[in-house]
């Protein structure tokens, strides 16, 4: 069936949402404008900055280049779904706070989602490897040294 407006169910942070969206709506716009989940940020909206990084079926991807319709049947995790049910921060979130790994904070949700996946992939073995595998997340404030320190700390804590 071909459709310009699609009725869809999206599994976001272990909750199923039913939505009717135009086919062209990205996962990013669905999260921010239709579900009120504004933790995922819109930076470049063209796949260049990483601010919109979310997990789909556990893999880090860019929500700005994913159609919401493509996420049907997948498990989506956003920054809002990272902390434990009781409110305890995820170890990567805590490490970003402890290492002061941000200034303005706009890129931070994307950095954290990317870092969680980076550690899980086993690509955080050294500072050089962290820098390489976190290169898809830009920080215009230039907080990179602290971001690398936070990823290193979280890697050691979760080892």
């Amino acid at each position, binding site marked *: 069936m071909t459709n310009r407006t699609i009725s869809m169910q999206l599994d976001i942070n272990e909750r199923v949402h039913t939505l009717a969206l135009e086919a062209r709506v990205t996962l990013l716009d669905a999260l921010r404008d239709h579900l009120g989940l504004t933790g995922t940020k819109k930076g470049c909206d063209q796949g260049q900055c990483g601010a919109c990084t979310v997990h789909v079926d556990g893999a880090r991807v860019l929500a700005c280049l994913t*159609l919401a319709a493509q996420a049907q049947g997948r498990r989506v995790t956003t920054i809002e779904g990272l902390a434990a049910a009781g409110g305890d921060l995820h170890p990567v979130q805590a490490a970003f706070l402890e290492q002061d790994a941000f200034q303005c904070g706009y890129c931070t949700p994307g950095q954290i989602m990317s870092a969680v996946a980076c550690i899980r992939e086993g690509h955080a073995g050294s500072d050089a490897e962290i820098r390489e595998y976190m290169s898809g997340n830009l920080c215009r404030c230039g907080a990179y040294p602290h971001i690398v320190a936070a990823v290193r700390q979280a890697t050691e804590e979760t080892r």
Partner: protein
Amino acid sequence: MKDFAYLRAGSVDEARQAAAQPAAMLLAGGTTLLDLAKCGISALDTVIDVTHLAGLSAITFDQRGVSIGALAKMSRVADDPGIRQHFPAVSESLTQAASAQLRNMATIGGNLMQRTRCAYFRDPTAFPACNKRAPGSGCAAIGGLTRNHAVLGTSESCIASYPGDLAIALVAFDAEIHLGTRRIPADDFFLLPGKTPEREHPIEPGEMITAVSIPVSLAARQSTYLKVRDRQSYEFAAASAAVGIELAPDGRTIRDIRVALGGIATKPWRARAVEEALKGQALTVDGVERAALKAVEGAIAHGANRYKIDLAPRVVARAILKVGGLA
């Protein structure tokens, strides 16, 4: 993005039929298609989502080589132990491409269909003239800012460079692109711009890449992908080389050698003149550096991209010496 319809294909045949319609495009990872749709370039009326099709993402080896399903993600192919063992240049070309997020999204089939990063092509509002985007409208890049444009394979119609990394390795090691039962050698899958830069591949509406196969060879097993760029990571190549060598039992005579270049040409550029100059010769620093100059025979600079003519042979030489154990 302009409004479009969405179809989730239930089978390859359904996807092919739908894709044969005007302004219908196959959607896999979306990293090129949706990006270009946002730039106002892709004239989309229907996107056909093929990402849920089963059976198109396997990586299978037999004695002749590997077959990689078109929907396999770049990240999975890059990390596959068999690919890393038999085709290190392929794995390295993938890990040095894009970012971790994009590699988790982009598929092997979609990677081969990526479009040029020519800034004039990507900005139709500021630069209406682009023969690739609007045939016959001219080329805003010629006479413009050309630092990232091609020096090989150009025409009076187009100097846009081919941006990808994977295809450089595929061309070097004689991969084939499978469109169902039809196969096209990787080198032939990319067309020179000539007078028709809008036509980039010899495929017809309704055809779909189903797999990529690469034959095993000793040269592919002893291979590397060297990428030189303005930033250390997450950047397109200023110049790159996929190189593989098979040495004779004496350890210094070159029995087989493959060389292909990226970042400098309008398509993945197999450097057969370099290969011919070195085949049967002893592997020496002097000989390699001299032969590497043949990689840019016939190159034409368009202003700021002149540096590529100096850079590319050095990248080729360094890659050959690296796999040959001399660097």
